[in-house]
């Protein structure tokens, strides 16, 4: 067995170990490389920045624990920004298994910013039907969510004053890990009810949302942990995303090196077998 062949056949658990270390070490000993802001993320930030106090900001946390590391930091930053701008925050989720997490993040950030439930913000919880929920909210918000997460009737809540349906929402952001997510909010929401829409998503979803971004169907896109880190930089509050960026750098570099090695060995093998 020649060298290249032997190298390709090494136990994959050794590679597992390399990746584990590449993640663990930067987390324990951070470097803190600067993070550049992309126009996609800035789109969302600038729009929220431009909103007058008291505008209605709808945040739909459409993800489950599987995407928590990417979308949880995004939701924290967005909520902090919205509360800091004194927007009226309406939070909800279309993913049943994300309900508890969504409630936690909204309550936690609201408490940290000294906001009052029912007056400054509301968490509507989850409702089944996916796209049907979006359409029903567009027709009649109180029909889709007769009660909020805590069981309080939504009708008469001060934070929802003057909001009958999605047409009265100034800005909606969907943090989506799949379907229903950002696309569903456009097709079944913005298309008819004409609110401004922004998106946040996992890395897996991000490339697929670029056509919508280009055509202005969404006015900004926060992609994955990197997007979250950019947003944390923009609002000037470091969180888990910035902390993870060094590990992200290290693992990417490791993968690139592995891909290059793989192809080096592969081509040397091919050349040898051709001879």
């Amino acid at each position, binding site marked *: 067995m020649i060298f290249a062949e032997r190298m390709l056949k090494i136990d994959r658990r050794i590679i597992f170990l390399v990746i584990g270390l590449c993640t663990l070490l930067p987390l324990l000993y951070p470097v803190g490389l600067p993070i550049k802001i992309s126009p996609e993320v800035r789109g969302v930030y600038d729009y929220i920045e431009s909103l007058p106090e008291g505008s209605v900001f709808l945040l739909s946390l459409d993800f489950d*624990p599987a995407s928590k590391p990417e979308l949880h930091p995004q939701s924290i930053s967005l909520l902090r920004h919205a509360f800091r701008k004194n927007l009226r925050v309406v939070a909800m989720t279309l993913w049943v298994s994300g309900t508890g997490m969504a409630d936690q993040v909204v309550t936690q950030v609201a408490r940290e910013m000294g906001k009052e439930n029912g007056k400054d913000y509301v968490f509507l919880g989850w409702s*089944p039907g996916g796209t049907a929920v979006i359409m029903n909210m567009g027709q009649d918000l109180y029909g889709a969510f007769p009660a909020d997460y805590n069981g309080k009737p939504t009708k008469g809540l001060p934070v929802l004053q003057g909001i009958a349906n999605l047409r009265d929402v100034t800005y909606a952001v969907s943090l989506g890990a799949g379907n229903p997510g950002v696309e569903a909010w456009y097709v079944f929401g913005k298309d008819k009810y004409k609110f401004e829409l922004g998106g946040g998503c996992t890395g897996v979803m991000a490339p697929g949302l670029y056509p919508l971004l280009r055509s202005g169907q969404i006015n900004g896109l926060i992609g994955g942990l990197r997007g979250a880190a950019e947003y944390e930089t923009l609002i000037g509050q470091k969180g888990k995303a910035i902390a993870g960026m060094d590990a992200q750098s290290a693992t990417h*570099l490791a993968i690139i090196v592995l*891909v290059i090695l793989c192809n080096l060995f592969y081509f040397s093998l091919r050349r040898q077998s051709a001879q």
Partner: protein
Amino acid sequence: MIFLRRQVPLLITLITGLVFAAQYYIPHPASEQMLTSVTKWLQIIGGFALVLGVSSLFHVHAIKIRRKEAGWGYSFVLYVSMLGTIAVGLWSNGKEAVDGAMTSFGWIYNFMMVPLQGTMFAILAFFIASAAYRSFRARSREAAVLLIAAVIVMMGRVPLGEYLIPLSGDLSQWILNVLNASVRRAILIGVSLGTVALSIKIIFGMERSYLGGGKE
């Protein structure tokens, strides 16, 4: 009987399909009212669909336990954890937290469901790394192009990459925003034509696989 079992469902699909496609073009309050009602109905039906979705699981594992098939112990674990979660959930009125204080249902959610689901997908990071080393080969010119684009994007999306090769950030931005967007747009258009074609076939009864269930 065949009329009731086969024709009537197809007729229901035809009528509801045409009506709700037409609704989009009719702004009259009467038509809007209809949409309001039906979307609310769909929400409720969606709840039933969820129950239907998970119930096949009950069935599969119940058989496993009854027949004591290989690994039936795991099915038993599944049953116990499910029933336990339901019991605790109903006890806590289906709330994970009351005024910010965690309930026992919240405990199961936070310390069992969240780490389990999160880790399930985190193990993939390791497999990507191993595949990167063992199988991501430039077997053809196409695969080579793919790998080069992937490396550029991987470089451009992390601070270290932008620090080492400053151009990589702009380059990956261009790849995503122009090349990637154009391909995704074409795919989106193609898939949409497929969706519309499928919907039309469903409405006109040429596609019936959704009916399933029950003999003719």
